[in-house]
């Protein structure tokens, strides 16, 4: 008889068999990295806003305090997006006829709110509360990044559960004195870990409860 297969078939067969075992593993690894990547987490993504509001200008250059506009941040879960009224407290005085601010004035006149696009976002089943984080010495820029440098707001962190856990497991790495929470230029002391540990005791932070599911999900 003649040979059924050409000599090359041997190598092909080996390759196929190896692929059978290696393929799935590779796929899983790829998926994992993909889902950690900004491609899936929307990290660093900016979104089209009705008004190109610049934190760089308001925070970085003018040095406005976060709480001036995000009024709920110390009281409520929702930090709060400023009402048109708040924008106009200043912009009825300055830049009163800037083209850029036309939508704001329109909204103020009509009483119809501005429709902003959410940038930093966690899923509905995550009950995140700004007020408690602020009250326990977690600075704004820990999660929101160097806002004072952002001409357009972008999502600074992946905001995945794994990312949340990192801090909930080791708060001492990130916690800071309450007074510095809104300080965009605060830098960690060299002995952050000791200081952090002290602050955790001082603020009565119950570290064991921090990684309970019920802390964020209900």
């Amino acid at each position, binding site marked *: *008889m003649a040979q059924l297969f050409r000599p090359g078939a*041997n190598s092909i067969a080996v390759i196929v068999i190896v692929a059978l075992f290696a393929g799935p593993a590779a796929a899983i690894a790829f998926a994992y990295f993909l889902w950690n990547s900004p491609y899936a987490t929307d990290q660093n993504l900016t979104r089209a806003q009705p008004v190109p509001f610049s934190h760089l200008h308001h925070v970085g250059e003018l040095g406005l305090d976060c709480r001036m506009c995000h009024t709920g941040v110390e009281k409520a879960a929702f930090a709060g997006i400023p009402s048109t009224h708040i924008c106009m407290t200043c912009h009825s005085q300055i830049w009163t006829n800037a083209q850029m601010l036309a939508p704001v004035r329109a909204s103020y006149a009509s009483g119809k709110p501005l429709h902003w696009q959410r940038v930093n976002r966690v899923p509905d089943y995550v009950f995140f509360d700004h007020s408690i984080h602020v009250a326990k010495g977690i600075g704004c820029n820990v999660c929101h990044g160097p806002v004072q440098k952002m001409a357009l707001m972008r999502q600074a962190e992946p905001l995945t559960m794994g990312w949340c*856990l990192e801090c909930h497991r080791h708060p001492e790495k990130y916690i800071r004195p309450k007074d510095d929470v809104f300080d965009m230029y605060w830098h960690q002391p060299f002995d952050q870990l000791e200081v952090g540990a002290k602050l955790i005791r001082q603020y009565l932070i119950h570290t064991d409860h921090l990684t309970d599911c019920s802390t964020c999900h209900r």
Partner: protein
Amino acid sequence: MSEYLLVEFDSPHEALAGARQARDGGHAAQDVLSHMPIEGISDCLGRPLKPPIGWAMFIAGAIGAAIGYFMQWYSAVIDYPIISGNRPLDSWPAFLLVPYETTILSAAIFGFLSWMVMNGLPRLHHPLFYAAITERAVQDRYLLVFPRDATLREWIADNLHPRQLHEVRE
């Protein structure tokens, strides 16, 4: 290119006898092709075959067990300890079942791989397949494989009185 002499026999016993004789005559066969295992024939070849597949599977099993337990211990005790029915974080009795399975699983899979490796499979293209008679080797015949050599051929014809002789060329 390798060329062979295939010596055909009718029954396993004749094949075995032939192989013995050839070995004793100092011309041990290179290999035997048969449609069924012939007990003891592997000892009559040039060098006896003792594939260590058992060891391979045993080691793989041991590793599988270790991985199986470590996986649970690491995830439940180290990485994310979660209170579940107030069971101990390292609930070893419950954690024994998965390793049990991973042991068998890895032994089987690795065993299969070594089965292929030790058999030199896959080998879709093999010089012996040039011989038409190899078709029957997987169905109902018994072939001793020798290097193609005129003198050897005669010696075989005289001493092993086989059913038939086949030569394999490219």
